[in-house]
């Protein structure tokens, strides 16, 4: 699948600039109660660089490099994972709302008991032999993906500052250029743990935080055997413009 690119608007520009991120719409880098953030976040301010082709190009057609998987994470009949069956309708969009077709999306999540099928997860909750909890899928011509999975459970973060992560799904998305790369987490509407989660609440802008929470599709509008959630991932990059030289 080819990806349409219409980023570079000025043919003669050597460098580009992009509007800075609006305060509070991205998480704070250091989070109180999450001690690793302070040990891993650079102490010096990040540098603002002129953007060049290196940032306004990026890997397209990643299925040629990374193996895509089935979008059915839940499995079927006797091999179906335990838990509440859900369908995630993910829309990947540019900042002007236009769909991004053919871009790769990776998702991963805990099982219904809140356990990841990952060697780093030593939580007491059981594994589910029918649930690996990940999928790697390209968006369709409309920039959308539909993933069939189960609702993840909440899980405690080990350590002295133990807190519970609300049910969430991790997404890794590329978009069309290097600048559009984003790794994010999707939350479920109405979960009381959302209000306590250190990661969700690191986004201090309430509207930006709301964009991290999926929308529940009314059950009357979504017949079938699964609850349906819709979620939109907007990536950066399209608003890059040629730098004005004085």
């Amino acid at each position: 699948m080819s990806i349409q690119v219409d980023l570079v608007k000025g043919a003669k520009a050597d460098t580009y600039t992009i509007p800075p991120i609006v305060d509070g719409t991205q998480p704070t880098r250091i989070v109180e109660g999450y001690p690793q953030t302070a040990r891993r976040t650079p102490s010096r301010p990040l540098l603002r660089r002129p953007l060049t082709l290196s940032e306004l190009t990026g890997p397209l057609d990643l299925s040629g490099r990374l193996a895509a998987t089935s979008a059915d994470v839940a499995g079927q009949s006797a091999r179906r994972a335990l838990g509440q069956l859900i369908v995630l309708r993910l829309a990947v969009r540019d900042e002007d709302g236009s769909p991004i077709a053919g871009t790769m999306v990776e998702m991963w999540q805990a099982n219904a008991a809140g356990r990841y099928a990952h060697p780093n997860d030593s939580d007491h909750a059981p594994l589910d032999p029918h649930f690996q909890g990940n999928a790697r899928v390209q968006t369709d011509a409309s920039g959308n993906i539909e993933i069939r999975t189960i609702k993840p459970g909440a899980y405690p973060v080990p350590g002295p500052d133990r807190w519970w992560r609300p049910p969430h799904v991790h997404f890794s998305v590329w978009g069309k250029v290097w600048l559009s790369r984003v790794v994010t987490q999707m939350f479920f509407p109405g979960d009381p743990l959302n209000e306590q989660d250190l990661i969700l609440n690191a986004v201090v802008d309430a509207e930006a935080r709301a964009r991290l929470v999926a929308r529940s599709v009314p059950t009357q509008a979504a017949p079938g055997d699964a609850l349906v959630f819709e979620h939109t991932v907007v990536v950066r990059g399209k608003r890059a413009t040629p730098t004005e030289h004085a």
Partner: protein
Amino acid sequence: MMSAVSMPIGEATIGPFFPGAYVDAGANDLTRWQGRSAQGQLIDIRGRVTEDEGVPLQNVVLEIWQADANGIYRHPADPRAKHADADFFGWGRAATDADGAFHFRTIMPGRTHLPNGTLRAPHINVVVLASGLMRQLQTVMFFEGNAANATDAVLACVHPAAFQEALIAKADGPRKYRFDIRLCGADETPFFED
């Protein structure tokens, strides 16, 4: 007419449970793609990712993006894209081991041409994703001994100039380079706004 602007989604940490299967075998080798070999000089890049006080970090995901041996990106925004090496994809991923160590095999990128005729020094864009990093970190790798480093528009943004050294991969034997990434501390790697 300007269309309405949607805000980019908030980033979140990649967390400790990024699936091992997503670091596909061979994803760190950019010299081979679809059974064919890229043009150019093969190089091995090794390094270590550390957090504060030099503690090695396991399970860090690094992704790189670079031009081919002639400085061309495999992307339609590059005016020279139709001449790009058909056997070079330009993107790779690696994860750090228990010692914080990573390895990429790639080719030495050429100098990319900016549309006004100026040239970048050979460089590789790097993104760092790790548990405890609430947002991705962006940096750029340059190569020791390349005279073009002195005029690169991005390297020139790094002040004081002494900090530029941390962005220059050091020759470590024939066709081998060493590039350590120090996330935090007095000697930390310079990072750029994403």
